[in-house]
């Protein structure tokens, strides 16, 4: 029966061309707009480490003893003392300190001007913990962390730039005035968002597109980084002026992040207790005053920072309002299309077609128009995404259509057209055969 309805639907496409084209275009434009924004939103709001993110946690302790109104929530970064204490306690399955800073970078072998790059100083667990893929070499060892070894891991981008994509393990990189040996080169790695550096979302006023920048180009052991780039670190906040600006070790500033991996619920509970008891103990020692602690898992931390840029959400709202207008439009036009054929429908009813059959036939026609609109919408979405990629936002290179979104386009188009078709089809199926036959 469906095949017959489809044939009828195809046949009816040839009549009332203008009306059909109008409907297909309306659906295509509506789908194009909403799928473009939905795809962007889908890419921005994804889980950067699916399957693992529930076991990764961001630890917060409040090291700021200033009595004021700010302590309902611990700050987004740790002070040096707390960070190092918690890290060296090694109570989690894995733990990584992170701090990033800008540094002048050169390769003595490559003959090109120096670059100012972002360097992440972290600890060896960082790489296995965040499943960072290596092209050449490997991460440094925990001994390198302890010995402040002059080693580095570089990004695939930087390796292409300085060494033409060759295996550069063992080569030397000059960071500031220090020489470090390259021990590893990453594969292209582009988590979305660049989750481990996310912080301060509460103060960003919804403009969070910076969370989607590329990862740092240079990775060094934590203490090594602090040594070679001393004087060039930025605080998250300070509760008193640091004695040497840019040198934040043991300064009254929050600036270091701590990520931990906890592989079972029991461990999460005990790590929470550990954090609380650490805060209590430090309070007893008089170093800190406020004992609020937090241990949010990765997605909770991202949500807390309201990581999806507000503009992207606003655009999605706008696009769906637009789709709704296209939907109303299509309902009206489908109604016109079906009722114009009242005579034909009357004949079919008189010849024995049930109301259900007429309804099904009309819906098939609506679905077919939706499918055609879906094809148009898919092409318009590709055009829309191409436009987004040309924008200067940090995430523009991430934007592409994946398989899920490809199918969503067509599902959405057909569903929209079926919703639009339901009411007109119902009206058409109520046409009284006798009345129509009389007027023929």
């Amino acid at each position, binding site marked *: 029966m469906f095949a017959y309805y489809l044939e009828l639907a195809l046949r009816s496409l040839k009549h009332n061309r203008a009306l059909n084209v109008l409907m297909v275009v309306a659906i295509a434009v509506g789908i194009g707009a909403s799928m473009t924004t939905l795809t962007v939103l889908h890419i921005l709001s994804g889980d950067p480490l699916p399957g693992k993110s529930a076991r990764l946690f961001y630890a917060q302790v409040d090291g700021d003893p200033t009595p004021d109104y700010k302590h309902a929530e611990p700050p987004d970064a740790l002070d040096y003392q707390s960070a190092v204490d918690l890290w060296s306690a090694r109570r989690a399955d894995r733990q990584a300190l992170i701090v990033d800073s800008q540094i*002048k970078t050169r390769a003595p072998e490559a003959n090109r001007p120096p670059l100012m790059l972002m360097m992440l100083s972290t600890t060896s667990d960082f790489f296995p913990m965040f499943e960072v893929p290596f092209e050449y070499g490997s991460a440094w060892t925990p001994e390198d962390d302890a010995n402040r070894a002059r080693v580095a891991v570089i990004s695939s981008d930087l390796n292409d730039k300085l060494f033409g994509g060759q295996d550069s393990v063992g080569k030397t990189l000059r960071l500031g005035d220090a020489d470090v040996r390259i021990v590893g080169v990453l594969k292209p790695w582009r988590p979305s968002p660049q989750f481990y550096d996310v912080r301060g979302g509460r103060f960003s006023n919804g403009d969070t597109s910076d969370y989607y920048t590329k990862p740092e180009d240079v990775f060094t052991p934590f203490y090594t980084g602090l040594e070679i780039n001393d004087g060039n670190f930025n605080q998250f906040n300070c509760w008193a*002026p640091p004695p040497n600006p840019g040198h934040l070790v043991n300064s009254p500033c929050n600036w270091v992040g701590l990520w931990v991996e906890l592989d079972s619920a029991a461990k999460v509970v005990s790590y929470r207790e550990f954090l609380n008891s650490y805060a209590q103990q430090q309070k007893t020692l008089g170093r800190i005053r406020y004992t609020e602690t937090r241990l949010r898992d990765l997605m909770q931390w991202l949500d807390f920072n309201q990581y999806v840029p507000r503009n992207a959400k606003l655009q999605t709202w*706008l696009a769906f309002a637009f789709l709704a207008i*296209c939907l109303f439009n299509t309902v009206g036009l489908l109604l016109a299309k079906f009722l114009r054929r009242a005579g034909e429908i009357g004949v079919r009813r008189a010849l024995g077609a049930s109301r259900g059959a007429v309804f099904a036939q009309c819906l098939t026609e609506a679905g077919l128009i939706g499918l055609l609109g879906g094809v148009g919408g898919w092409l318009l979405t590709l055009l829309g995404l191409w436009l987004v990629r040309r924008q200067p936002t940090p995430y523009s290179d991430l934007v592409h259509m994946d398989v899920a979104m490809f199918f969503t386009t067509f599902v959405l188009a057909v569903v929209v057209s079926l919703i639009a078709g339901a009411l007109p089809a119902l009206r058409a199926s109520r046409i009284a055969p006798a009345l129509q036959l009389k007027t023929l």
Partner: protein
Amino acid sequence: MDIQPILAALRKHKIPAILIVLEIALACAVLCNAVFMIGQRIGEIKLPNAIDEQGIADIRVLGTDPKLSADDVPRNLAALRQIPGVTAAAVINTMPLTNNGWNAGVGTSPADVMDKDSPNVATYFFTSSAEQALGLRLLRGRFFTSEEFAGSKLSDSYIPTGHVTLVTQSLADRLWPGQDALGRQVWIDKDFHFTVVGIVADVLRPNENGEGLAAFHWSMFLPLTPGPGGYLNDYIVRSAPQDRERVLRAAVAKLEALSPNAVVRPITFTDIRDKYFANTRSMIWMLVLVCVVMLAVTAFGIVGLTSFWVGQRRRQIGIRRAVGATRAHILQHFQTENFLLSSAGVAAGMILAFGINLYLMQHYQMLRMPWYYLPASAIALWVLGQLAVLGPALRASNVPPVVATRDG
């Protein structure tokens, strides 16, 4: 014109009539808010910035040894000033619209600084003759003296130790509303205070800083003499606009020659502005595109449905013509019908627009929409409806009376 028959006719076509009303209502609501957002963003791009935007280039020099900057900076400036065409050169900690914010909470007394509501202000520190290099426009008072530059060093708290400042007109109005700001004290933290010696026309901050457009002009300027520490990185080079590109190339060559290990990043101020507002501009274009396509879709929807009605009512139209209605009567019938539908649509649409605006105010920090957006977009949709209905209505008025005598 008697609207009774029109209402009677509409009652026969409830669903299509409701659909048109809903479509117009939604279009009206989206149009109001989208146009308001476009206006807001254009306002942001158009904000005045009283520096010589066309003549300024900014060269950021990074990666030099901070311990040597007391000597490097004067040497570099002397070299830059020798370039033919350079009218002024100076060093500053950051430039407007570069997203490199140096902000501080300020107040009119030490107690006021610690207040939660004390304004957050962009602080620019610069070396002598930077007023000329930027092209600041002095409204009242005076610029800094060379003694004031010489006596001001950067303290450990990143704040200069001098005791004088220039403030923008907007900041002066915020700190001392309705009073004369000259000679008054501004406090930064509780340890630093500065006497206002001059008021300059509004200069933008490095970034909007999430405090709304009103705060975008809260800037203050402090004199500074180059010392150790790598905080004065932005070389401002001013020239006539037509010399700018040439001067910038020469300046980069000179700086690279003087500090071969440095990373030198040149940019003209017009490029800084373009970069800062690139996202805003693309958002404007997207909103304009959505509005245009949405209105087109609405218009075509009206054309489609009215055409259908005209087709359905050919016989009735013929009868009306046969019993004496003129073409103008038929035309008027459809126009009035559309006017009634549009009116119902915009009435609902204005309420919806207001509701959406309230929601956006709550969740997206939108401002309250001025009332005149509502009638303006109502008029736009009325006009759109009349234009869309004109074609089908003209076709209806051309239905010959003889149709009435035919069957079917």
